[in-house]
Each structure stands twice: as structure tokens, then as C-alpha cells.
């Protein structure tokens, strides 16, 4: 019954707006179907991920030996573009891709509230991304992804393109945030009360609120930077009464919430995966949902912990330190609730579950190093060292990227209608897990020993550890290959997936794989919570008579 899934393509009077995909060509159009847009997000952002990964391997190649191989400008520009791509073009939009694909299905809607706005959000991403990457070729920006002035006021034209690109990407994420909030607020199926909302949707609510409040501040700061670069206006130039620290405040007012924008949806995805593969109701549903909102609120009051050594007012460090430590509480609430969820469950170690458990462990390490970094005396010691690099990769790669991989496997059968290869999935997980830890675990030590980040050369005594990290980095790069091959081959020729291979209770599994153009044959009516595993009742909503009959009634 999945044959009819992609057959409806409507051509509007305008000619270029389409809804639904009948052939692969429709994925290259301005398409208003949230599922098509979701796939567009996955493919585009994963391509950017591969580019960013290749740049990372060049960085690790440079760091094999202490002296500089590349010119320092090239090296600086490598980590600038690597960071920008991974953050603005992979993790943030990839999470939005899952939001796009899953939110309407999970709430039993036929699409997002504003399908055309949704398509616009997507198409801004390749435009913004190519703008940033074009900058790499016409005059390398090398001020890092944080673009601190005065470095970001230096001549290379690539810096200007970087600013324009990030403004475009910010606009995309802002439009997406409004769309998600309206969709979740107003388009839920009958009976889907807030207390029955899947936790991923709760995560998208808190993420979207953060994007809504934080992104405009970054846009304003970027516009000021642009005006200073292009017209010579004075905001950040000390000689004319400007203040470079103001950039850091405005930038981190956005970018600290942005780290939660990058990880909260991942936490939501993990909250969906753990109960399914433990066959247990999620432990502490309300606490997990509420802790997302708490993180969203506290996350706005901690940005100064990025600036402990910047020369800002010293007494400000104390509230920022305390706030940053407090945010570990709602995060800890989540971790313990996830542990409670899998505790005593009938754990099935399929690939999505492996990645979700990997997330749990790796993110916890990143969270703990985060608390040490929030402590002012420790932070002063390790600022701008590899300790920070280790920390941010444990939360961003060990956290967000593991969650994204878990979700890509979990929803692969739903999205493509075919099953991936489990054995290759597991090989991918272990290569990824070992490569990741080999790369980033030694960096803690390097940082504590004082090796500075963002420098092409380093002291000879760090060589052995750097070589271990580089080998790990290449392994991590290679680990993307089994995933790519598995995904492409399974998508083309994998065995057909049943509608609900994981026997999940959330709504997206109660329709066909892949879902029909308008998602559900009849509007589902939700009668109980999304994670009632093992309590002997049926799926949360009955989508269609056939789907209901095919779905098992929990074990």
C-alpha cells in the first residue's frame, strides 16, 4: 500500500510550486510537501556535513606534525569554514529537517502551517551555504565561526560573504521557528493534548522559542559588522569609541542559546528512540518536557561564560558561572530520566538504539566537561585550549551528531519505505564510536597541558597525542562511508519496510511507509499517551483501519 505514496503531484498556476514528489526531479523543485522538504534538508545538510568533515580531516592532517604545512591563512580559514559549515549548515538545519519531516506526522497533521514559507526556509539554506563557501575561494575569511572583531574587520572579502551567508541562514531558521510554533500550537490531531505530545515536538517548541528570541539579535549584530566593514561605521572599533566586546556579548547572546538549538531537538529524538527500543513507557515524561523549557529559559542567561577571559566586568563572571552550572540541573534531569526509561527495559540493540545510547554516554561526558568549563578558575586555565575543542565536540558530535545518526536509522524505513542493512549500521556505529573517542578524548589532556586551539603549529611534546587524534579523525571520516553506502543502496534496493517495523506507538508509524502525500487517510484521533509500552493498549492514534490492524498492541 506504499505504492500510492508518491503519486500526487500538484502543479500550481505559478508553475514552479509543487506539492509531493512523483520522481526524483521533484526534490529539486520549490516543493511545499513537508516530507519532500525534510528529505531535501537531510540530503543537503549531509552533503555539507561531508564537506565539513573533509575540512576537519585536512585540519587533522596539518596537526600530524608540529610545524605548519599549510600557510597559516589557509589553516585559519580551514577551521573557520569547518566550524561554520558544521554549525550553520549541518547540525542546526539537519535538526530542522527532522522537525520538518516528523512534526506534522507526529501531531497527525497533513502538513506544516505554512508550506510555502517552509519551502522558502529550505531554499535559503543552499543559498546561504554556497555564499559562505564561495567566500572560501574569493578571499578566505579566517576569524573562526565566532567572527570576533577586530579580526573580522580585516579585508578578506570572504568575511563579507560569510556575514551575508549567516544572515540568510539565520532568516531561514527564524522562519522555520515561527512555522513550527504555529504548527504545533494549532494543528494537532483531535485528542492530542499537550500532555500527549511526543517529546520531540516539545523539544521543537523549546528550540523554536530560542531561535525566535535569539536569532534576531545575531542578525542585528551581523548587520552592524557588515555596516562597519562596508561603510566604515563604528561599532566595534576602539579607536572611534566602539567596543569589540559588544560583538562578543551580542554574538554569544545568540550563540549560547544556539548550542541548545543544536542539541535540544537531538534530545527530543533520543527521547523518542529510547522507549521504543526498551519497550517501556518513557520515565518522567513531564520532567523531560519541562526540562527542555527550563533549558530554553536559563540558556538565555549564561552567554557570558564564553567571555570569562575577554576583559568584561569581572563581577559578571559569578552570575554567569552560577547560571551555567544551574543549567546542568535540567540537563541532568533528562539524563536520569533516560536512564530510568531504559532501566529494566527489554533493550533491543538495533542501530538507532546503539547511537542513542552512544549519545547518552558521550553527551554526559561533554556535559561534565561543560560544568568544569563553567567554573571560572578552571576556565581561565583552559580558555582557548584543546580542552574547549574536546568539550564542544563531545556535546556537538557525541551529542547532536550521534542523535542525528540515531534518528536517520530510526526513521529510515518511514522516510524511504525500505529497511537499511542492520549489520552495516552496527559497523558504522562502532567505527564512528571508536573514531570519535580516539579523536576527541586525548584533546582533554592536550588542553589541560596548555595546547592552544586554532593554531597550525604546536610544541613538539604534543606530537604523539596529536597523531592519535589524527588517526581517530581519519577513522571518523572513513566511518561515514559505510553509512553512505548503506543509505544509498538500501534506499534504492533495500527490502521493503513494513509500516511500523519498530512497533512504535507514535502517530508517524501508524501511516504507510513512506506516508501518502497528505500523511493520513483519515484524521487520527488520539486516545492516550505516545509511550504507553507494555501497558497493554493500542497505538496512540488509529490512523486508518488497515494501519490499526497491522499495528501490534504493545508487548
Amino acid at each position, binding site marked *: 500500500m506504499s505504492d500510492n505514496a508518491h*503519486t500526487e503531484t500538484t502543479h500550481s498556476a505559478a508553475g514552479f510550486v509543487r506539492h509531493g514528489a512523483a520522481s526524483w526531479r521533484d526534490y529539486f523543485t520549490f516543493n511545499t510537501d513537508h516530507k519532500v522538504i525534510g528529505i531535501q534538508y537531510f540530503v543537503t545538510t549531509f552533503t555539507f556535513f561531508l564537506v565539513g568533515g573533509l575540512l576537519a580531516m585536512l585540519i587533522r592532517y596539518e596537526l600530524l606534525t608540529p610545524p605548519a604545512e599549510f600557510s597559516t591563512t589557509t589553516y585559519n580559514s580551514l577551521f573557520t569554514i569547518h566550524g561554520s559549515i558544521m554549525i550553520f549548515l549541518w547540525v542546526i538545519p539537519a535538526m530542522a529537517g527532522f522537525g520538518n519531516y516528523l512534526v506534522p506526522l507526529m501531531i497527525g497533521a497533513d502538513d506544516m502551517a505554512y508550506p510555502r514559507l517552509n519551502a522558502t526556509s529550505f531554499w535559503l539554506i543552499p543559498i546561504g551555504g554556497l555564499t559562505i563557501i564561495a567566500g572560501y575561494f574569493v578571499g578566505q575569511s579566517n576569524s573562526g565561526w565566532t567572527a570576533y572583531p577586530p579580526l573580522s574587520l580585516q579585508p578578506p572579502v570572504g568575511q563579507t560573504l560569510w556575514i551575508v551567508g549567516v544572515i540568510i541562514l539565520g532568516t531561514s531558521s527564524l522562519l522555520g521557528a515561527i512555522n513550527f510554533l504555529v504548527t504545533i500550537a494549532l494543528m494537532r490531531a483531535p485528542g492530542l493534548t499537550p500532555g500527549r505530545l511526543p517529546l520531540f515536538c516539545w523539544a521543537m517548541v523549546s528550540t523554536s522559542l530560542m531561535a525566535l528570541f*535569539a536569532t534576531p539579535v545575531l542578525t*542585528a549584530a551581523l548587520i*552592524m559588522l557588515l555596516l562597519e566593514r562596508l561603510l566604515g*561605521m563604528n561599532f566595534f572599533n576602539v579607536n572611534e*569609541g566602539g567596543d569589540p566586546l559588544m560583538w562578543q556579548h551580542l554574538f554569544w547572546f545568540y550563540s549560547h542559546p544556539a548550542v541548545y538549538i543544536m542539541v535540544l531537538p537531538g534530545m527530543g529524538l533520543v527521547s523518542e528512540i529510547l522507549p521504543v527500543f526498551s519497550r517501556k513507557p518513557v520515565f518522567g515524561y513531564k520532567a523531560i518536557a519541562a526540562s527542555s523549557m527550563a533549558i530554553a529559559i536559563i540558556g538565555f542567561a549564561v552567554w557570558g561564560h564564553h567571555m570569562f577571559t575577554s576583559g568584561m566586568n569581572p563581577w559578571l563572571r559569578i552570575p554567569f558561572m552560577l547560571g551555567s552550572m544551574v543549567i546542568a540541573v535540567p540537563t541532568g534531569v533528562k539524563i536520569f530520566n533516560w536512564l530510568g526509561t531504559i532501566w529494566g527495559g527489554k533493550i533491543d540493540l538495533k542501530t538507532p538504539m546503539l547511537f542513542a545510547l552512544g549519545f547518552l554516554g558521550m553527551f554526559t561526558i561533554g556535559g561534565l566537561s561543560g560544568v568544569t568549563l563553567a567554573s571560572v578558575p578552571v576556565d581561565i586555565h583552559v580558555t582557548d585550549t584543546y580542552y574547549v575543542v574536546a568539550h564542544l565536540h563531545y556535546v556537538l558530535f557525541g551529542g547532536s551528531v550521534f542523535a542525528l545518526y540515531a534518528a536517520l536509522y530510526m526513521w529510515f524505513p518511514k522516510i524511504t519505505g525500505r529497511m537499511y542493512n542492520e549489520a552495516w549500521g552496527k559497523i558504522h556505529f562502532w567505527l564512528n564510536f571508536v573514531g570519535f573517542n580516539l579523536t576527541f578524548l586525548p584533546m582533554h589532556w592536550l588542553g589541560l597541558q596548555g595546547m592552544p586551539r586554532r593554531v597550525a603549529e604546536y610544541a613538539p611534546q604534543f606530537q604523539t597525542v596529536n597523531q592519535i587524534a589524527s588517526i581517530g579523525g581519519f577513522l571518523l571520516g572513513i566511518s561515514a562511508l559505510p553509512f553512505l553506502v548503506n543509505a544509498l543502496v538500501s534506499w534504492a534496493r533495500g527490502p521493503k519496510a513494513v509500516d511500523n517495523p519498530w512497533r512504535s506507538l507514535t502517530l508517524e508509524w501508524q501511516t504507510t511507509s513512506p506516508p501518502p502525500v497528505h500523511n493520513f487517510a483519515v484524521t487520527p484521533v488520539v486516545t492516550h499517551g505516545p509511550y504507553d509500552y507494555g501497558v497493554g493498549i493500542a497505538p496512540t492514534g488509529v490512523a486508518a483501519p488497515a494501519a490499526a490492524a497491522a499495528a501490534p498492541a504493545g508487548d
Partner: protein
Amino acid sequence: MTAHTLAPARTAPDEGLKRRLSLWLFFVSETMMFGSLILVRFHLWGPGRVAHLDQVLGLDLTTILLLSSGTMAHAEALIGKGDRKGFVRYIAATLILGLLFLVGLGYEWAHAPFGPTQGVFGAVFFTMTGMHGAHVLGGVIFLFIVLLRGLRGRYSAESHWGAEACAMYWHFVDVVWVFYYMVLYLL
């Protein structure tokens, strides 16, 4: 059992609620953007007043914009009663006041005692008024579209969301100016 034999399921939210919620969310993000510029002003100028700005002109600009909010509100009230002619007249009046504001702003820019590149005073003043002016310009274009549609009789007492959205946007831009006037001219 095939899905296409059944009518596709559509969740239809209350359109009015959906539109208003989206617009208010947009205003939230705009408030953060305009608000961050106010903080920049206090950070770079300090709490004191910049004496050189033309107080009379500032007051005139504010008066024009407040008046335009009045005509806009009246236009919305008139279309709510089904008075299409009155609606068009007041939309036109709002449009003219909006243009007048932009002309006044242009005059202010031409006669300001400092250029945009002169110190942080120029930077902050021209960026804040420029950002707001760009929004007024957007509002004037919006008003022009509403005027054309009004002349073609597209709005009625029951259905005039376009006009209502335009009014909400115009009032929002107005309120922003009230704050900008205070922090740029008065403090």
C-alpha cells in the same frame, strides 16, 4: 485497502488565530532585533543625551507617525463597518503620512550634525533610524498594496485580513519609533 480511496485527512486550524499568532511571533522576533539596537545605543553612547539632534524635527516625526496610527486605526474601523470608500480614504491618508515621515527622516539624515561614519554617534543614529526607516518603507509598500486592493473592492466587513495585518504591522512600527524617539532624542 488503499489510502487514496478515502478523502485525505486535513487538519484545518482556525485561520484567524493562525494568522494572528504568526504575526505576533514575528513581532516578538522584531522586538528582539530593535531591542538589541537600543542596548547597543546605551552601551556605546552611555545614558546621556546627544544634544545636537534637532528636537523640533524629532517631535514632528513622532507626531506624524502617531497621527498615521490614528488614521490607520480609523481605516480599520471603517472597513469593519463595511465603509469601503472611507476605508480607502483613510488608508491613503496613512500612506501619505508614512511618506511624509520618510521625507522628514531623509531631511534629518541630510542635516544631522554628524555623518554615519563619524564616531559611534553616527553609527548608532543612522543604523537605528535606518533600520526603523526600512520598516516604515516596508509598511508604506504594504499600505500601497492594501490601497490598490481596497480600490478594487477586495475587502469587506467580514473579510479584510490583509488590511488588519497591515494595521497591526503599522502600529508595531509606530510603537518601535516611540521607543527610538525616546532613546535617540529625549534621553
